[in-house]
């Protein structure tokens, strides 16, 4: 029975199966498949390939297992995970909202799932229409002129967007050298700029967490290609001077890239296109409810204003009378950023979601997401430090300042939250908040679950004072405890080796 303190209301411990690595479970000679018999005359393999090209190792060590063992293996593994269907997953900036089951159903409709990306247009009208529709919906939601669905995730969208900026500036005669990025930005922003051949210049935020216009004014010269801004930014605040910012950048010949990862705070309320943003991406795997899948896939469509539209990746889908066709005739395009048409299956899910919501649903989503973040802030304010006390939008950033005096860090609080039955918040950024705990409840949480979260956070604060050691060794209720990650990185073991080959 449970070893967890009675203070913990949300969880108990329960029996859970161990499971070795698949290679340790492999049973030579077992099979988990059956193919139809070969129905053509078999030819000698060496005759077909030549000795030189033949594989000799007989795929040694690849697993051999019957179907029931495969099923148990992965089923058991799954039970070691925590997902949004398990409970609240307040991972800030990641918008871990509910993944509607209907989306999964639609994405598996056979005529979508089996559609080949190079199949003649006459045979893929349904897919092309989905893409066309998705672009229309996203244009309307963002207020931008045109959209491309090729980018496979947010970072990929960023890259696409910055490349388009480069393309446009190039055509204007000077691609420029730098991209300005607030110090609160997500790591993909600077990494992206670098990949596109730009130097990165950080700009400090004001004490209130917003972009410092004075500083921007200073930095914004003709070496600057673009400002990359997240809005609402990564401390959860809306850049109130967004139009001034855009004007300033534009006046000096630069463009504004908006990281749209936080669109869950804006959909149906305000549109980047109306703010003067030139190009942005959205994360459909955040705002539009497609599942994160333990790391992906995502889809990071880029949306652009009219001026940038010619630079969108090629091809685009256009409508000719009643038919949808792929348009490759795009002389200004930056080219392809990915083979085929992007993560179509993700886009399909997102379209299903947008249609399920409609305008009112989308707005209700946003309102609820913001309400929820404020609700949590309201109840934990004072207990946990809120470094930037502005108008909180869809997420609230706490710090461990109040708890640090007991020797307890954000990491300890996060690990202890696991014992209380929650996934921890984001801690890896914004770097401008030391010991940050970025909490994004999303609209998918109701106050029942949030009340438990608030209760847990309060309780952990008390534990931090009464028994900080408890937190430092948390979690205590999981099948494995804290790992020695330093040792793991020092001597990385990145794959299994057969015991005979181990050394």
């Amino acid at each position, binding site marked *: 029975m449970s070893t967890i303190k009675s203070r913990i209301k949300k969880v108990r411990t329960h029996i859970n199966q161990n499971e070795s690595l698949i290679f340790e479970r492999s049973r030579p000679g077992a099979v988990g498949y059956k193919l139809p018999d070969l129905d053509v005359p078999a030819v000698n393999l060496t005759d077909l390939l030549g000795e030189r090209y033949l594989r000799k190792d007989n795929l040694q060590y690849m697993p051999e297992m019957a179907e029931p063992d495969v099923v148990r293996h992965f089923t058991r593994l799954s039970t070691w995970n925590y997902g949004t269907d398990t409970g609240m997953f307040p991972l800030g900036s990641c918008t871990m909202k509910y993944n509607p089951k209907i989306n999964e159903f639609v994405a598996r409709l056979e005529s979508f799932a089996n559609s080949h990306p190079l199949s003649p247009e006459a045979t893929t009208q349904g897919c092309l229409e989905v893409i066309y529709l998705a672009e229309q919906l996203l244009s309307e939601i963002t207020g931008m002129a045109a959209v491309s669905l090729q980018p496979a995730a947010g970072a990929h969208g960023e890259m696409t967007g910055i490349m388009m900026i480069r393309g446009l500036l190039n055509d204007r005669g000077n691609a420029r050298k730098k991209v300005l990025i607030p110090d609160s930005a997500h790591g993909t922003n600077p990494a992206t700029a670098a990949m596109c051949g730009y130097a*990165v210049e950080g700009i400090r935020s004001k004490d209130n967490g917003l972009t410092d216009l004075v500083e921007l004014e200073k930095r914004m010269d003709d070496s600057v290609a673009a400002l990359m801004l997240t809005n609402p930014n990564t401390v959860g605040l809306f850049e109130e001077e967004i139009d001034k910012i855009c004007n300033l950048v534009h006046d000096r010949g630069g463009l504004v890239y908006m990281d749209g990862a936080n669109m869950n705070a804006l959909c149906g309320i305000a549109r980047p296109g109306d703010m003067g943003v030139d190009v942005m991406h959205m994360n459909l795997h955040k705002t539009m409810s497609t599942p994160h899948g333990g790391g992906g896939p995502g889809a990071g469509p880029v949306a652009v204003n009219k001026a940038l539209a010619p630079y969108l990746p090629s091809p685009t889908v256009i409508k000719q009378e009643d038919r949808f066709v792929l348009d490759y005739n795009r002389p200004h395009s930056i080219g392809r950023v990915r083979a085929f048409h992007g993560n179509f299956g993700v886009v399909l899910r997102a379209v299903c979601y947008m249609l399920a919501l409609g*305008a009112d649903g989308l707005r209700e989503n946003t309102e609820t997401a913001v309400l929820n973040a404020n609700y949590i802030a309201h109840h934990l304010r004072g207990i946990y430090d809120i470094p930037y006390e502005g108008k909180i939008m869809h997420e609230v950033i706490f710090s461990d300042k109040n708890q640090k005096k007991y020797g307890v860090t954000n990491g300890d609080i996060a690990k202890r939250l696991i014992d209380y039955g929650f996934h921890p918040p984001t801690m890896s950024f914004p770097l401008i908040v030391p010991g940050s705990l970025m909490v994004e409840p999303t609209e*998918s949480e109701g*106050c029942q679950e949030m009340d438990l979260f608030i209760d847990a956070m309060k309780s952990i604060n008390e534990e931090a004072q009464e028994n900080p050691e408890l937190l430092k060794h948390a979690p205590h209720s999981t099948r494995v405890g804290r*790992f020695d990650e330093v040792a793991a990185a020092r001597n990385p073991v990145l794959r299994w080796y057969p015991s005979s080959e181990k050394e």
Partner: protein
Amino acid sequence: MRYIPNSAEERAKMLAEMGVESIEDFFTSIPEHLRLSNPLNLPPAYAESELIKFFKKLANKNADPNTTISFLGAGAYNHFRPIVVDNLISRSEFYTTYTPYQPEIAQGTLQAIFEFQTMICLLTGMEVANASMYDGSTAMAEAALMAHRITRRKKILVSQTVHPEYRAVLETYLKNIDMPIETIGFGSSGETTLSDLTIGSDVAAVIVQSPNFFGCVEDLELAAEKAHKAGALLISVTTEPMSWALLRSPGDCGADIVVAEGQAFGIAPSFGGPYLGIFASRTQHQRQMPGRLIGQAFDGEGNRGFVITLATREQHIRREKASSNICTNQGLFMLMATVYLTTMGKNGLQEVAMQNIQKCAYAAQAISALDGYSLLFSAPSFNEFVVKTPRPAAEIAEQLLSKNIIAGLPLSKYYPDMTHALLVCVTEQNTKADIDQLVTALK
């Protein structure tokens, strides 16, 4: 809205508790003129039954996969997907979770990735593989960037037999960072002309695809020799990794970086994505790799487990100095491939590969025996080959389509000169009857 737990009553209660009058008050930091005064112009919310009807109708605008016979490959392959694969990745603990940043409650994902990394190493003959890239094409572009980081050289040589869309992506990735690309041609055998190739000292890597876009198996060993002699790396690309079950592995041939499109491993064609970028290399280069790596670790009680490791390469730590900007990858489809590879296993993969090569050989033989048709290239094939057609291939494809046969890919789409060339792919999913029907229709 049915996805929102808070009832109107609760919403009101929450607002009251916070002393806020209206939800509108939360949005006052957005300047009023930027706030929408009218609802968005979107279709009215659909009921679930309406969504199903709507999407079925759209899906039906595509060809019916049950009545269309297809010989399309060219980077996306029609392999049988065992039912358990989709079944297992549909466990919500897998698909509704995030990148495994909290190992204590993410061991399921982490162990699966470790297993995937291992299987990719076994299949490719490499020493280290990452947790996935977006797809084969972006993996290839990232490999070029990595080669640059390793060699500090700039030029990339890429064979013309590499998938044209992959080359297009490479171009997009490299054009802004002053990394020139040079193309290597191919000969009448369908193979890259490696023999008389000279590789300059400015070359970071040579990129060769095998089986190449024409379905021909390339001599990777020779390519590696040539590249290494010039101090360059060999990047091997594969769009059809099922071939690995029968072909000498790229690692065995000496490749330094192996990238591939993993769609063949149990992933639906799905109009081109989501797919799976496979990326593997040598231990000596592991700290230059892009993407996520999972490593073995131990907890305080000595329990073995797995964690994200060597993360200092990644953007969330290294920012502009990161080895790549990739963050979200193709996690769930990595899992899909892992389940597929496990289910088919050692024997299944070999049998699938064998059926592919045999059926392909049967089709190639039968088509080339037709009047006016021949095989364009002489190099050995796995499951694709190019047919020289008596009339423009696009014309033939168009005709066959009216008989519900997708005969293959007319190569003129990517190689404008090759008007009379049809790329045909045959997998274990094409029955002898299908092939015979194609042959008859081509007559």
